[in-house]
């Protein structure tokens, strides 16, 4: 299988010069293969947000390497980083992060405009992805006029429209009610299985995590344990996750 994300001995230390130093990540290594649905779990302060920021290329590791689609992202800077993000990474955030003065369609189109795609092509791809996520009925609404679940679908459409190498989800169900959350997770699973979209999900919610194929548990800046779903039912995997979490907290 093709490796699309390689994290190699990554350390991240906060605090400069004489300030007290905090080691958020103490040497983490793992890989994500094309078409995988990987979860990262951990308590608050475990370093999972730090890891996400590094993967999202919003921050740089103090030591170690991160490659996404064979590019060493730790070596990129400024414009290269911005272009890399718009090309290779799709984001879904907990608080949607939609631009509330643009309509849903316009929000979805922003990444393509940034890449200089022609208007005609933009329209075609927006309606394609909207249909895929069943939001074609609300394309001309503003974020304030639609529900949380719909907002997150719009955000997912915006993340997917560039056909990124990897979709990063930062607690994407965190602000949704349970029905909307289940809908979104079903959709993500379908995208993963049918369209081979690689997904990396950061969450502390065991239910969301149970949709993943593999979960990395992080504690105090290192990978504490790794579990795989394999042929288990989702309910069985969910219980396994709960028991690991139980051990994690002791």
């Amino acid at each position, binding site marked *: 299988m093709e490796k699309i994300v390689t994290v190699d001995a990554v350390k991240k230390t906060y605090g400069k010069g004489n300030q007290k130093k905090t080691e958020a990540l103490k040497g983490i290594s793992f890989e994500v293969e094309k078409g995988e649905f990987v979860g990262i779990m951990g308590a608050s302060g475990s370093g999972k947000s730090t890891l996400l920021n590094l993967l999202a290329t919003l921050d740089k590791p103090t030591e170690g390497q991160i490659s996404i689609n064979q590019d060493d992202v730790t070596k990129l800077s400024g414009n290269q980083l911005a272009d*890399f993000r718009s090309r290779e990474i799709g984001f879904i955030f907990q608080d949607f992060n939609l631009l509330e*003065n643009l309509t849903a369609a316009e929000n979805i189109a922003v990444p393509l*405009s*940034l890449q*200089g795609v022609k*208007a005609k092509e933009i329209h075609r791809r927006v309606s394609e992805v909207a249909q895929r996520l069943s939001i074609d009925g609300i394309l001309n609404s*503003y974020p*304030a006029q639609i529900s949380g679940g719909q907002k997150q679908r719009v955000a997912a459409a915006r993340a997917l429209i560039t056909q990124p190498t990897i979709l990063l989800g930062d607690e994407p169900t965190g602000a949704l009610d349970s029905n909307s959350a289940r809908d979104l997770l079903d959709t993500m699973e379908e995208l993963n299985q049918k369209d081979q979209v690689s997904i990396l999900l950061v969450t502390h919610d065991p239910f969301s995590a149970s949709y993943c194929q593999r979960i990395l548990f992080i504690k105090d800046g290192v990978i504490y344990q790794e579990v795989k779903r394999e042929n288990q039912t989702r309910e069985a995997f969910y219980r396994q996750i709960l028991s690991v979490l139980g051990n994690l907290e002791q």
Partner: protein
Amino acid sequence: MLLKLSLTGIKGRLRDYIVLFSGLVVASGIFYMFEGLATNTAFLESNSMVKSIVFIFHLGTVLLSIITFVYILYANSFLMTMRQKDYAMFMMLGAKGRKIAQLIFIETFVVGVSATIVGTLLGIGLSSIVQQLLVKQLAIKITHFTAVSSSAALFTLIFFTVIFLLAAFVNAMTIVKKPILTLLRAGETPMPANRKPFTLLLEVISGIAFLAIGYFMMSQVMTLAFFALITALITIVLGTYFVFHSILIFVLDLLKRRDSIALKKLNNFTLSQLSFRIQDYTRILSMVAMLFALALGAITVGLGFHNEIMKMTDATSTYDLVLNNGQEFTASDLKGLSTSSDVAYQQKEDQDTVYYDREQFNQTPFKTKVFTSNRQTKTVGFDGEKLASDVTASDQLRTLELPEQSAKKHQFVSNQEFAALPGKTTELRLITVKDFEKDRDALTKLANENFQKNPTLDKDMGGMSQKALVYELYNALFSGFEFMGFFLGIAFLTMLASCLMFKILSGAKSDIQRYSMLEKIGARQKLLKQSIRKEIGILFLVPGLLGVTHVLFGLQMFKTLLSDPYSNLWLPFLIFFVLYFVYYLLTVWIYTGIVMKREG
């Protein structure tokens, strides 16, 4: 403890506070300078031919007070957007509402009053600098002008203290009355206003119509007088409002519909930001456009008066220097002049007649100015025959003669006859120079020597024949106008640009998230900065353009006062735009610093 927290809060936002503080300092400084003039009745009356000038300045005070008040409200809301999350946090930590209100009150009041004191001192300093600069640069003659005025200082202090008391009270009340959650979530944008296309179109049409009526009325001020003025004022204010309330939104909408524009880079975002902003900014943008027109108009007309000085002088005098008994002036007396022509008409006189040599006038005709139909003058030449036959022509010559000569008859005789006449030959010497401005000091000196050598010349009457003295007269007359126009213009400009700046900046906080999100999805920093520059640029440009249009049409009204209000327009426009542009750059700089803080 709370005071300490509050102080740390200020320290954390030192740059924003410095901007706010200096804005307030400039506002009070300008207010002081203006009051320094307005309360100085002696200065106003001695520098203006218009009786109502004191009234005009009182009107100016009222206008300036209103702008200052609005300005302080905006500056205050900027202060509040910076602080309200801190206050909400204090309240969450258990600080009592009353305590917070006290804190806000003290903070607003202390910042305001200390800014006013510094501003008044700055105003005194600026007054004397402006005075010296204007006096030197524009050769303006102003009298009774003092930089330090206790009544102006007192008025400024009282005015600002009252406004800050009010502002502090309003601030304290709003913070305490708002639920904590609203404060914590402050800065989220409201829903887009849904306007029916038909109403929008109706507003667009009526906006254009109002402006058209207003502009037409301003060109009719000569015939319709006050009716035109008042109609113009009302329709232009309405038209300006509609431009921002509908026309601009209409245009932005059209742009957004064009895929080739909207779907390029961040254009759609910038356009949407603008159309959301403008709904919220309608009133301030209309006010800015009107004040822009007033300020630019004041400077343009002020400088127009400056141009008038030389024009009026040129229109009255043909020759740059008139020397009676010119034979008494030697070549060395005239050494300092860059003479371009020097004519000496010889005179002989008896009891009741002054004789001239006709041939001399045929050789170099006597030149004088006559009025043409459209209040312009032109130079005409009279030769010996014309002078001999036409009394009005020779009367022109009379105005340059000594009083005892001009009372006598004139005879223009032939060369031989003139030579045969008995008596002493004197000369009426008429000189023009290549560069009047350059030689003005020398000309003034010679003109005064001419008075000394010819004591019968009445300085009050005869002064009108000496161009250098005519110049001084007009200079004194118009300088007051010029100074006031300049002063009013600069004062209004600073206030309106500051208002706009703080209004834009107080919206910056809510944009932080938008820009950080765009950055996350891969928008280059350069692109984000470009978007900011475009957005703020349009918010500055549109009221500016509208203001310029108002001025261009408005100058029609000054056709009665100024011979050509449109001449040398580039100078006031340039001064104005440079200042306005500095404000634009400052706004962009601070705004970028706020929304893209992570990099800063």
